[in-house]
């Protein structure tokens, strides 16, 4: 075939490249600069386009899709405001290492730099909030760039990649170039296989440990379901306790007796104290985030630290470690298990028994306890009841950001990876609802619930229109305390109870709001009605908003105040008077 005969427009090439990258769904919003792409989408039926109501939601939906499937999420937005609206989502995906390819329209090449209509310096704006970005200046580079972008997004430590597409490039013609396998990038080569010597050294440390703890994070989930299986296998082989970060929940079954719950600022007493008192800390795919470490100088002071991470820049960034291992979690775990089995090490049973006894004592404090009365629903109670009714169903949980998010992490139990999506690094209010849409698109028959607060949900509430259009039966479970709860909690603890601008004035009637979009609205503030309402929510095959009116003054405990050490934990409302928060702590977020 002669090139002229086979030549296709840039937009058609793009669609072809997406199909070759096994893309099934694109979340997007049209506009002038991307009209050629929308025309190409119109003429085919392999790619499904989901029309969102705001570009930020397109990225979050793609994140939900990506996190629940392990595939790359794809976003398509127009130039200028389309691209700038996507920036929050891209930053969110960067912080949480979610593979996204975001296609942005751009004004034609000859107008770039002219302050043209709907022009923005998209590659300039998105440079710090993407793993990488491209401006495609010639149609001949288009297909190759798309394939490279997918490779960069999904390999190594995953992340968002932007491809900026000037309109003339989309309309010019060129031959298609299929993806080359295996990909060999000229400069980007993530290290997935660990150094075998370091694995041996790690096992030396692990087998000699007397008070060990596994501390694992989102890296295990990003590595794929196999990594979670290997993690469980290795943790069971060793018999050691394990704690997960917010991003790592689900990588190890929450119901397992070796699981200590989440650690960090709102983590459990037993997990944080195990971190403080351990002698060997085995970090797999977690990055010593400030929500985890608390006061750095008092973070796990007595331990030898092993840190497994695919990203060398995560190592020794916040906490100096003794044994860094660069590699993919699954590969590293596989090797660790192999060496462990080959050695059949004899561990110090007596020391381990004593360590577990200590942990059980901490666990006995029952740090998540709360008091439910007959009058008002405690948010913790609402989530416990929710979990009771969904635990035997195929379910996925997303959250917004705030108190409800922390309670969800504490009170819902995650048994498998890829079933929990929350904005961990960036802490983006408005994340959960669009993310739930993306999850529901990927898993049409599953029960998908966005655990929300009444403040966060307002940040992307326009997506009710999207779920109506695609009949997505997403459930929004609002813990409504009429406050930006976490802001209110901090104002109570740190700012003398001056609740500056944290009261949610003029909230909508969520039941009527649901109805206005063809969804179903349910409401209760009565503990005795709660079970019935949850059961009804599950039964309804349409989108549902459940407005649960909860105790307005409830705070999220345990809490390690900013700048405090792991042992300085507030366990409940009576704790705070004795331990005033330091000024150093107050300047931290």
């Amino acid at each position, binding site marked *: 075939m002669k090139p002229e005969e086979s030549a296709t427009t840039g937009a058609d090439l793009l669609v072809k490249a997406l199909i070759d990258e096994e893309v099934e769904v694109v979340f997007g919003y049209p506009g002038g600069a991307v009209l050629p792409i929308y025309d190409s989408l119109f003429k085919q039926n392999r790619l499904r386009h989901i029309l969102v109501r705001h570009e930020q939601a397109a990225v979050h939906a793609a994140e939900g899709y990506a996190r629940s499937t392990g595939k790359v999420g794809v976003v398509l937005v127009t130039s200028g405001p389309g691209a700038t609206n996507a920036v929050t989502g891209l930053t969110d995906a960067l912080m949480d290492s979610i593979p996204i390819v975001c296609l942005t329209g751009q004004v034609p090449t000859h107008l770039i730099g002219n302050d043209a209509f709907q022009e923005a310096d998209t590659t300039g704006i998105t440079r710090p909030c993407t793993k990488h970005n491209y401006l495609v200046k010639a149609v001949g580079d288009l297909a190759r760039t798309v394939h490279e972008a997918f490779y960069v997004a999904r390999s190594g430590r995953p992340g968002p990649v932007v491809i900026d597409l000037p309109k003339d490039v989309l309309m010019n013609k060129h031959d298609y170039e299929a993806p080359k396998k295996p990909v060999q990038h000229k*400069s980007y080569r993530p290290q997935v296989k660990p150094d075998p010597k370091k694995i041996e050294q790690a096992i030396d440390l692990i087998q000699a440990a007397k008070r060990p703890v596994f501390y694992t994070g989102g890296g295990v989930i990003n590595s794929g379901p196999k990594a979670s299986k290997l993690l469980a296998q290795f943790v069971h082989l060793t018999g050691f306790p394990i704690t997960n970060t917010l991003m790592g929940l689900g990588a190890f079954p929450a119901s397992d007796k070796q699981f200590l719950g989440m650690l960090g600022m709102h983590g459990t007493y037993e997990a944080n104290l195990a971190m403080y008192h351990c002698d060997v800390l085995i970090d797999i795919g977690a990055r010593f985030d400030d929500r985890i470490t608390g006061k750095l100088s008092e973070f796990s002071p007595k331990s030898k630290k092993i840190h497994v991470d695919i990203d060398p820049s995560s190592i*020794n960034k916040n906490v100096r470690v003794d044994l860094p291992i660069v590699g993919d979690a699954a590969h590293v775990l596989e090797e660790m298990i192999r060496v462990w089995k080959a050695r059949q090490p004899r561990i110090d049973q007596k020391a381990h028994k004593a360590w577990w006894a200590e942990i059980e004592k901490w666990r006995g404090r029952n740090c998540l306890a709360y008091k439910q009365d007959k009058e008002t629903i405690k948010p913790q109670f609402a989530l416990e009841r929710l979990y009771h009714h969904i635990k035997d169903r195929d379910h996925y949980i997303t959250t917004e950001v705030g108190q409800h998010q922390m309670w969800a992490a504490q009170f819902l139990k995650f048994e498998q990876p890829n079933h929990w999506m929350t904005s961990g690094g960036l802490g983006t209010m408005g994340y959960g609802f669009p993310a739930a849409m993306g999850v529901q698109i990927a898993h049409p028959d599953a029960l998908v619930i966005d655990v929300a607060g009444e403040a966060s949900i307002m940040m992307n509430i326009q997506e009710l229109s999207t779920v109506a259009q695609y009949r997505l039966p997403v459930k929004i479970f609002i813990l409504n305390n009429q406050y930006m709860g976490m802001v209110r909690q901090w104002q109570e603890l740190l700012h003398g109870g001056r609740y500056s601008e944290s009261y949610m004035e003029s909230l909508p009637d969520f039941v009527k709001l649901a109805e206005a979009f063809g969804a179903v609205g349910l409401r209760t503030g009565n503990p005795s009605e709660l079970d019935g309402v949850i059961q009804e929510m599950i039964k309804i095959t349409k989108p549902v908003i459940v407005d649960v009116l909860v105790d307005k003054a409830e705070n999220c405990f345990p809490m390690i105040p900013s700048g405090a050490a792991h042992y300085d934990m507030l366990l409940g409302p009576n704790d705070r008077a004795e331990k005033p928060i330091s000024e150093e702590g107050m300047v931290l977020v």
Partner: protein
Amino acid sequence: MSPVETASRHTISVLVDNEPGILARVVGLFSGRGYNIESLTVAKTNEKENLSRITIVTAGTPMVIEQIKAQLDRLVPVHRVRDLTLEGEHVERELALVKVKGTGEKRVEALRLADVFRAKVIDAKSDSFVFEVTGASDKVDTFIGLMEGLGLIDVGRTGIVATTRGGEAI
């Protein structure tokens, strides 16, 4: 926790794809993460493979320097990152163009000092010189310092370029 570590100066050589935006990526990384740049030079150095070499002089504690290198290496178009300061012996040079205006004894003195510093006269007018001086940065500093009293009116400096000693490429 480790004791307070002291900051030291490091010369880092970065081999990158010569593509639009690469310098912005590198500079943005430094500003975005609060690292400082004492000197930065960049130019295309490999025509065939279209590569540029960026030489950065920065300062920080060992942990910060390690982080800077890891962050640089993480950028997709970066081929190689080398810490010349850590890797042993290396040479650093800088070039400056120094304009001095004056007549009489000062003019003669400027010319005499230029000779001592092996600076070349690359432009001469009846009341001014442009000197080209090359060397380690402190030599360039000293020369410029001396010219200050002799009618210095303009300085352009390239920033530091560097390479390792011995027969191996970076």
